[in-house]
């Protein structure tokens, strides 16, 4: 199969490099030429988080010559449950800087190119064009469609991986003969219909498994060996430890990679995914399930700050606070409010029948689910429902710092 690297003059390997990569060199499928191809290769890792961490580390170990990292974010303690490229010492650093430390520590021959930015339609073509393989480890639909489209337009293979809780998917998109992400999913789900991972959590090791699968595919593409996942979707079920492969077909009517493409340049992916554009410069990802902002009323629901709620409670006003998170979250931390999980609001609204006209303040973890719950209650005839912006996290930040945040 065609390798991702063109057969130009391959870089030489020093004696030190030969010693380092000896286990590759003695494999007939790799050998000196293969290792030189790895050294010549340039791979872009979009995202240095759950998937990007193991992916970048194994590419560095393998001797990929240039690794580009795209990430605008900083390291947070909660990342360390799975993002093994970062460390306790680098909490607070820019992720690209933090990743570089461990990558260079593992392999000083590596050339790291840091793109401390969010990938957008305005910069994607420019950033991607100099790389040979793109590895997509992002966490939102907008960027996935963006990376997919850019890869097809630039003719770059896209080692795709994605995860949700205990399951993962992997494939290789963006090759001329193979399907692209849009052949599999022509349209994104409307925001809110697929539960967000931030609300669902993820088993830390899962992105480790899938990220290394992406690294494996990347290396196979560079070396031109084995059978990359072109035209196949690998499904990983970590709990059952089962791996299934499904056939993916190139859609001849695909608007990006089909025979008569209608998408010939990058589009507005926020609009495509039905997301309202962020009102300030900030991570795009939050837009999908963000706690509603500083507006006093959103979608007919008055927003109340934690400070305002505290004032009301201190003044012993007749306010009923309702928690709509899940029972296992309640165990972590709670405000002592009665709990009806968001998914049960419709069936259990009758339990609050005597409060139809009372003041109800709904809260969740950060303000997104509670907004949905408040709207559901309003629909069910409750006349005085507000949403606690920022949720219990904002309460912990502003009112009671002794509370744990999660």
């Amino acid at each position: 199969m065609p390798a991702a690297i063109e057969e130009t003059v391959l870089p030489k390997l020093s004696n030190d490099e030969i010693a380092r990569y000896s286990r590759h060199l003695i494999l007939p499928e790799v050998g000196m030429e293969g290792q030189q191809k790895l050294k010549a290769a340039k791979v872009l890792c979009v995202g240095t988080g759950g998937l990007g961490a193991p992916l970048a580390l194994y590419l560095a170990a393998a001797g990929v010559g240039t690794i580009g990292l795209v990430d605008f974010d900083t390291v947070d303690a909660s990342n360390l449950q799975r993002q093994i490229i970062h460390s306790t010492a680098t909490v607070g650093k820019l992720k690209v800087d933090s990743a570089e430390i461990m990558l260079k520590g593992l392999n000083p021959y590596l050339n790291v190119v840091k793109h401390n930015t969010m990938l957008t339609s305005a910069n994607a073509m420019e950033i991607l064009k100099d790389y040979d393989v793109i590895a997509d480890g992002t966490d939102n639909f907008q960027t996935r469609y963006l990376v997919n489209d850019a890869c097809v337009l630039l003719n770059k293979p896209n080692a795709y991986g994605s995860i949700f809780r205990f399951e993962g998917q992997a494939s290789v998109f963006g090759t001329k003969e193979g399907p692209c992400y849009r052949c599999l999913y022509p349209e994104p789900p409307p925001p809110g219909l697929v539960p967000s991972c931030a609300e669902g959590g993820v088993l830390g090791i899962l992105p480790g498994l899938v990220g290394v699968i992406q690294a494996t595919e990347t290396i196979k593409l560079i070396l031109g060996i084995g059978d990359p996942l072109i035209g196949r979707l690998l499904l990983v079920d970590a709990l059952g430890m089962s791996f299934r492969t499904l056939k993916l077909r190139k859609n001849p009517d695909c608007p990006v990679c089909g025979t008569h493409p209608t998408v010939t340049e990058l589009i507005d992916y926020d609009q495509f995914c039905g997301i309202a554009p962020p009102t300030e410069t900030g991570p795009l990802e939050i837009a999908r399930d963000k706690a509603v902002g500083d507006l006093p009323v959103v979608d007919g629901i008055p927003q109340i700050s934690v400070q305002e709620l505290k004032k009301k409670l201190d003044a012993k006003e007749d306010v009923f606070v309702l928690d709509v998170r899940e029972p296992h979250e309640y165990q972590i931390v709670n405000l002592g409010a009665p709990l009806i999980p968001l998914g049960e609001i419709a069936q259990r609204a009758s339990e609050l029948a005597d409060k139809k006209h009372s003041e109800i303040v709904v809260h969740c973890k950060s303000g997104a689910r509670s907004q949905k719950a408040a709207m559901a209650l309003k629909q069910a005839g409750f006349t005085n429902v507000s949403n606690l912006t920022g949720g219990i996290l904002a309460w912990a930040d502003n009112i009671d710092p002794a509370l744990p945040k999660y």
Partner: protein
Amino acid sequence: MNINIPTPLRSYTGGRETVSIPGATVSAVFRELTVKYPELKQHLFTPEGKLRSFVNVYLNDDDIRYLESKEETAVKDSDELTIIPSIAGGSHL
């Protein structure tokens, strides 16, 4: 026949990852599925009754979109349907 339910939809099937539903064609099996688990309906189908475009259905290893009779493809009890929704978790998750 068995239908494999993806994680995001298992809360609507009482946590079950596989459900057994009778039917002679793919669409008949889906009708029965949404009768038995009504909350699945809005996640799988548009109000007009079409399968949502970000949900893929595989009959054994084949995407039903590429089968000649698509949803009207006849199924045996030993066949398996798998529902694959779009997932995007990665970097931050």
